[in-house]
């Protein structure tokens, strides 16, 4: 009978302790079953936390060399101390590594700037092209007195970010074209787009990458070779564009046909209708799934390790293959898992923020 008053109507007065006690009672111990669940959860949290904190902090060694690790039972953070350069920048020549650092910074700065809605205009795409060209010069060198660094030597975080950013940048426009093509009234254009989308969505990314690394060289005339990195990049772009195209198509389908008809009756041409009326509304609707496709793309760049590129995961694998660090595999994987986590978590939070921001105007 006490539950007749709904929660939100209860008085919020009382001292802070009083209120927090009430919160605890209502959220954690409202029924006997709830109390049992709470105690069970507390036990699990305690178990997990004590294991993790014990391993990573309390029993860990923070010395910069491995010698101190013999004495402790927990993590040996000397691994990060000794290997972070290799993991973050791969086999990039040591003397030139500032260029790889600069490359990562440029990519992160570019991403942060692009996240700001004030800069959203066609100029942003152009600015990105210039920015990427500059990035390429810095990483590859061979001009302005920079020594040449072959793309096979690029690696680590810089490579992961490069694959992700370029992947997003080129997959999105391609996906837009595919989505428009799939909804087009021209039967042949439609068939081409449907086949492209369904084939790439039906097979695993790894098979696309294997195709790019083994089969693709056979497609080219003799003597022409395209480097492995570019092939993997194109594979990632095609694969994610197919998924993204379906996301965009979903958004376009959600726009009521009255909008299409209104645009037609105003005498707008196809591109004006799509560019000014349909897409601005449709894309706004699909921000969350678009961002989760981008997050998948970032995570999926780790698959290039299978065709032998040294991204974050590839570099870590070869770092812990070194007999000296073979016991530190947990530290190795946890280190890059944290890096991936930060990027993905940040992206998903940004997606929520953007979604809320844009929905406010609707």
């Amino acid at each position, binding site marked *: 009978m006490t539950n007749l008053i709904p929660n939100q109507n209860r008085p919020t007065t009382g001292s802070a302790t009083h209120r927090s006690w009430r919160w605890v009672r209502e959220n954690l111990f409202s029924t006997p079953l709830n109390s049992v*669940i709470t105690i069970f959860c507390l036990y*699990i949290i305690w178990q997990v936390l004590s294991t993790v904190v014990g391993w990573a902090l309390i029993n860990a060694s923070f010395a910069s060399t491995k010698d101190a690790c013999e004495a402790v039972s927990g993590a040996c953070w000397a691994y990060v101390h000794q290997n972070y350069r290799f993991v973050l920048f791969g086999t990039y020549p040591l003397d030139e590594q500032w260029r790889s650092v600069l490359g990562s910074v440029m990519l992160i700065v570019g991403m942060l700037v692009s996240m700001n809605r004030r800069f959203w205009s066609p100029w942003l795409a152009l600015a990105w092209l210039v920015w990427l060209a500059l990035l390429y010069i810095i990483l590859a060198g061979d001009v302005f007195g920079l020594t040449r660094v072959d793309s096979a030597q690029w690696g680590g975080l810089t490579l992961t970010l490069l694959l992700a950013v370029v992947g997003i940048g080129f997959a999105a426009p391609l996906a837009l074209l595919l989505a428009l093509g799939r909804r087009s009234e021209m039967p042949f254009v439609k068939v081409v787009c449907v086949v492209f989308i369904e084939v790439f969505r039906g097979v695993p990314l*790894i098979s696309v990458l294997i195709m790019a690394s083994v089969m693709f060289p056979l497609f080219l005339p*003799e003597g022409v070779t395209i480097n492995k990195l570019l092939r993997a990049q194109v594979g990632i772009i095609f694969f994610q564009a197919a998924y993204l195209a379906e996301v965009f198509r979903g958004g376009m389908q959600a726009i009521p046909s009255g909008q299409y008809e209104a645009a037609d009756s105003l005498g707008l041409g196809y591109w004006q209708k799509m560019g000014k009326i349909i897409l601005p509304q449709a894309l706004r609707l699909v921000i969350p799934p678009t961002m989760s496709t981008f997050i998948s793309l970032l995570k999926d760049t780790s698959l290039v390790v299978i065709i032998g590129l040294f991204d974050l995961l590839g570099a870590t694998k070869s770092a812990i293959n070194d007999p000296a660090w073979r016991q530190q595999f947990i530290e190795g994987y946890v280190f890059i898992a944290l890096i991936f986590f930060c990027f993905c978590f940040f992206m998903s939070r940004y997606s929520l923020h953007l979604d809320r921001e844009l929905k406010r105007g609707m």
Partner: protein
Amino acid sequence: MSSTQSSSSGTQPLLALIYDKTFRSILYQVLVFGGVFLLGWYLVNNTLTNLEQQDIATGFGFLEREASFGISESVIEYSPADTYGRALVVGILNTVKVSALGIFLATILGTLIGIGLVSPNWLLRFMGKTYIETFRNVPLLLQLFFWYSVVTNAFPGPRQALNPMAGVFASNRGLYLPVPADHPAWTAALIALILGLIGAFLVRKWALKRLEATGEVFPYLSAGIGVAIGLPILAWLVFGAPTEMNTPSLQGFNFQGGISLSPEFFTLLLGLTIYTATYIAEIVRSGIQSVPKGQSEAATSLGLKPSWVMRLIILPQALRVIIPPMTNQYLNLTKNSSLAVAIGYPDLVSISNTTMNQTGQAVEAVTIFMTIYLSISLLISFFMNWYNKRMALVER
């Protein structure tokens, strides 16, 4: 004069033609078709030239040849003397095995976490969210490498194997579980189970028919479960109720008896389940939350029992929201099982890869496994579409 006349009469139809919708549509399509055709022709031509120059055979004749490589685990009999064709079948079966088990386990785990996410208990919701954020923001491949390293490095050897339960052993060579010893009673129980399921289905059909005809309610769910479980137990009892188990035991350097899961299989299954469950949990949560509260209140006020409210009112409506995205997750899990190649589980991609390296026939091998994946994907989506249609809202 005559020239301008002719030019204007020449441009007029041309302009009209350019602005003509049908003509433009045909023109665009011809251009796209031409582009696709030329590209395809160029690629095929290059490939044929390259294959000829590198002296690589073409065609699917290699499927008949001896594979001469071993496969660490297989559902069917396989030896290196078998053909490439049979090796690929082993790969397909291994992919299907790990995907089917993964889908089953991920659905259970994901549903449990999804229900936890809508619990009134704040701590449980918090734990669910933490689980999801942790495992979904880290690449699956990284998780697989991690679990694989843990299993192969941190687990003890067979002699010091962990023994968490009687008969269950975990070592760096794999996980060993006891199975019932060979006895005709188990076969009989299996047949009885199948018969029981068919029986339960028939009871349900009959009960629904009678419900529509007479309005009398028959508890078909409990009756069906009773038949499906009761029959196997009866069969087992009739055949002498054997309780002897085939437990794994250490013999020499490894365990014998029982069933064993290789570290590769175990890791892949664990990784796929944990990763996909995060997505399924979110789907289940949004499905449950999509049913307005008024629905359960209305059902309760009609006097329905809580279990009926769940079964007749909430679940059918939630499933409608849940099924389409769930299909995508099942497809993703199946495709993600191809990451097996990275940890050495002999799935379809990994065996195709070996085939490709041995025969050099990359085009054929890639074509085969891409076709198989496409067919598996289409099969799962057909099945789920059929199920979805059955559950969908029937409007006017």
